[in-house]
């Protein structure tokens, strides 16, 4: 019989209380893991950004377009390898609930984004069809689209009924790549604008500027923006990471709120576990006095109490971490339109496990302090 055996017997002395406390820790760790995963997923766009890609957009606002004519000038800036462009299309498929990103893009956009993998024969078929589109693998899974299908969209930014023929299906070359978007030919959109809204034709939403050397990003950006200084459409050029981070920053308060809530949850469970441990120690104060009488030191008792607290926290934490996987997967499935891929970072689980350990240690401090200061004769008088 070792002290460790006594510790484990003590844990399950009040089975219901121990199990409820463990489940409390498990739920808290799971909630922490889910919130951190949502935050990581939210930030994953900027983590996928390539260092050799710059984004040039209108300086005043992202929603304003910039002239296609700028492209030639940008291409001649030293250090620029290739320029492609995109337009946010919007539109409605079935209804507003069935959202997925839709963008009009230049034909060379696939060179700029090698992480989006399209089979060569499908890319050729797409390039040969002005009404063709390429969709992400997850859209195929969700809607059952197949090559040759027609996707009909109701235009909102660009009114009318739009038809696209599925010519290709892209997949990401790593799990964090969004596979829920749809891309089609910018020329198709521009033809419409030339007919129906000529003043908005021959404009693009933003340029994707591929550069030769990522370390020259600041210099190239400055030179690009310098070209259009004091023009009617001044530009803002920045790295793709900074561009995407701006989107994330728009929801900065929400993200910060989620981060705070994730730690508050851990704080609450710390109080719950600390309360359990204080109650436990109070009930056993006489037993601790007996152990002290028999010659067990304060260090022995501290080990007994801290071990019990840590074990509850670790068991609960482990259950919580295991539960986080199906919960995140379920959450991702339920909100697939907004979170196409739940990014479960190892750091989330390291942090969750570390916090469970910390909670276990901190929760043991109060009862240990009480037992340390307890006089044996006072403990022996205690009625359990």
């Amino acid at each position, binding site marked *: 019989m070792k002290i460790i055996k*006594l510790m484990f*017997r003590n844990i399950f002395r009040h089975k219901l209380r121990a199990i409820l406390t463990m489940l409390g820790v498990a739920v808290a760790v799971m909630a922490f893991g889910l919130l951190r995963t949502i935050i990581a997923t939210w930030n994953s766009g900027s983590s996928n950004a390539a260092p050799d890609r710059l984004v040039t957009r209108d300086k005043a606002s992202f929603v304003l377009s910039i002239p296609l004519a700028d492209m030639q000038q940008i291409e001649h800036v030293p250090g620029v390898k290739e320029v492609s462009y995109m337009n946010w299309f919007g539109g409605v498929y079935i209804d507003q609930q069935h959202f997925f990103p839709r963008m009009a893009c230049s034909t060379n956009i696939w060179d700029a984004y090698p992480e989006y993998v399209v089979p060569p024969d499908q890319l050729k078929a797409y390039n040969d069809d002005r009404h063709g589109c390429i969709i992400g693998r997850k859209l195929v899974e969700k809607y059952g689209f197949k090559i040759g299908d027609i996707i009909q969209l109701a235009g909102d930014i660009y009114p009318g009924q739009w038809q696209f023929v599925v010519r290709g299906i892209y997949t990401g070359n790593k799990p964090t790549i969004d596979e829920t978007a749809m891309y089609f030919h910018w020329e198709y959109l521009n033809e419409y604008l030339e007919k129906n809204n000529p003043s908005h034709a021959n404009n693009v939403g933003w340029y994707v500027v591929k550069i030769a050397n990522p370390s020259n990003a600041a210099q190239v950006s400055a030179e690009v923006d310098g070209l259009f200084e004091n023009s009617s459409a001044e530009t803002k050029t920045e790295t793709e990471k900074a561009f995407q981070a701006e989107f994330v920053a728009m929801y900065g308060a929400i993200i910060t709120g989620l981060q705070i809530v994730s730690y508050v949850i851990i704080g609450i469970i710390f109080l719950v576990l600390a309360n359990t441990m204080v109650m436990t120690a109070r009930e056993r104060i006489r037993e601790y006095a007996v*152990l002290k*009488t*028999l*010659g067990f030191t304060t260090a022995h008792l501290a080990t007994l109490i801290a071990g019990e607290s840590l074990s509850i926290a670790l068991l609960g934490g482990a259950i919580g971490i295991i539960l986080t996987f199906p919960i995140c997967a379920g959450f991702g499935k339920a909100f697939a339109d907004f979170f196409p891929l739940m990014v479960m970072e190892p750091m989330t689980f390291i942090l969750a496990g570390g916090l469970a350990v910390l909670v276990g240690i901190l929760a043991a401090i109060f009862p240990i302090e009480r037992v340390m200061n307890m*006089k044996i004769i006072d403990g*022996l008088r205690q009625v359990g």
Partner: protein
Amino acid sequence: MAEPIVRVQNVSKVYRRDSLQIPVLQNLSLDVPEGEFLALMGPSGSGKTTLLNLIAGIDKPTQGSITIGGTDIATLSESALAGWRAQHVGFVFQFYNLLPVLTAFENVELPLLLTPLSKKERREHVETALGVVGLSDRMKHYPKQLSGGQEQRVAIARAIVTDPTLIVADEPTGDLDRKSAEEVLALMEQLNSEFKKTIIMVTHDPQAAAKAHKERHLDKGELK
């Protein structure tokens, strides 16, 4: 004449409660020779349990010295005192104070966990101690599966398993029926006569005290 195994010299004990000072023992001296079976008697509040606690090293005197087997325990630090208790004192409490999550065997084994004995040696010691108290067949029973008398016998086995210099018993029969009390007292007599253990027993029961070799009476903190 041989040195007594317990020597209490000019011991006083004052408890402080807020600004109030409560004198419990006053300038008390007591010698207990080795192999003695001493009964400390007295009315409630006379200080007999306080004296026993001081001798057992679970409380410290306000003044005076307590020497057990040549060691002045009043001068020992808390951790040294814990080690000394583990080695030299066996405790028997009124309410047995067994750990409910441990079997009789494991309860008796507890003090041995602080010794360098191997698992096999510990098992031998525990089996011997439980054999002495007549509970070899109850080793795997938990306290709630035992009668009060059996629980107290397990507590006695725990007290003797380390072969201590001194056994202190605080009202060991106070929570038992007459039959069980007789059994426990017979066991203590046996420990004293057969195993030559020095026993100091606090009791207010004259029948229990009659089993001891010697009775001392405490009244208002003074030995009579």
